[in-house]
């Protein structure tokens, strides 16, 4: 009795019938035939499919070690698509983490006076004090924030992602989750401005300690 194994649109048993030894799976000879058929299919499509895409499933090393090395990262592509879709909301008071790339592009200043941007911040995000040399120093991580506003308004300094650690030798006294910090920041921005929606773009959250 032949075993009927479906392989795509073709029948495995019809393409590779069982050999004389009676092995239902076809034995060594059938496996060689199967390998030849697969290699033939691979070589037929090899020139049509980019090599890079074929390598997607092979190996363990990434194609690029850092973002923007090969071009615009995929998540930035989607982010820009989302921001372009909601570009009408990006106006007035805007908060953008790190650089003011998207607020400048999506909401260019209409008047010279409105183009004022305040860079609120701050300190090196990644620098961590040497615990051995300065055991009593507390470590505070701050992200750079950008606040864009009409002239004459004053803004509080907003600390995003602040993580305080205890002196050396002890575990972190309190470490809040990144999404909690983000929500807290958005809530504080909304509470301060108090009208409409604040556009919060380009947030890139790093886990504490990096």
């Amino acid at each position, binding site marked *: 009795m032949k075993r009927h194994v479906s392989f795509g649109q073709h029948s495995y048993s019809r393409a590779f019938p069982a050999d004389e030894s009676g092995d239902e799976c076809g034995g060594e000879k059938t496996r060689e035939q199967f390998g030849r058929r697969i290699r033939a299919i691979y070589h037929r499509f090899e020139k049509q499919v*980019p090599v*890079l*895409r074929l390598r*997607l499933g092979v190996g363990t090393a*990434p*194609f*690029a*070690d850092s973002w923007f*090395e*090969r*071009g*615009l*990262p*995929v*998540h*930035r*592509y*989607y*982010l820009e*698509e*989302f921001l372009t879709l*909601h570009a009408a*909301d990006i106006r007035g008071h805007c908060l953008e983490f790190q650089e003011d790339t998207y607020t400048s592009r999506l909401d260019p200043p209409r008047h010279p006076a409105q183009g004022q941007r305040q860079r609120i911040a701050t300190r090196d995000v990644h620098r961590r004090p040497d615990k051995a040399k300065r055991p009593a120093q507390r470590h505070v991580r701050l992200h750079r924030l950008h606040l864009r506003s009409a002239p004459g308004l004053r803004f509080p300094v907003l600390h995003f992602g602040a993580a305080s650690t205890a002196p050396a030798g002890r575990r972190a006294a309190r470490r809040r989750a990144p*999404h909690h910090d983000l*929500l807290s920041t*958005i*809530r504080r921005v*909304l509470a301060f401005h108090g009208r*409409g*929606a604040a556009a919060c773009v380009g947030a890139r959250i790093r886990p504490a300690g990096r």
Partner: protein
Amino acid sequence: MLAREFGPQGVEVVSYGNSLTAAGELRGLAACDFTKAELAFQDERYGLLLGARVVKSVSK
């Protein structure tokens, strides 16, 4: 989570990406390595990016 903070009326969440673009992002591929059709296909099960538009209600 956002609806709990801001109310369900003012929250709009959109998922972007699919399993192919998510795998490519992990492997270091860029947007130019995919076709527009591949990038435009949105699969909520394998979303690469979540976009949220949140509007604060006046009553809060």
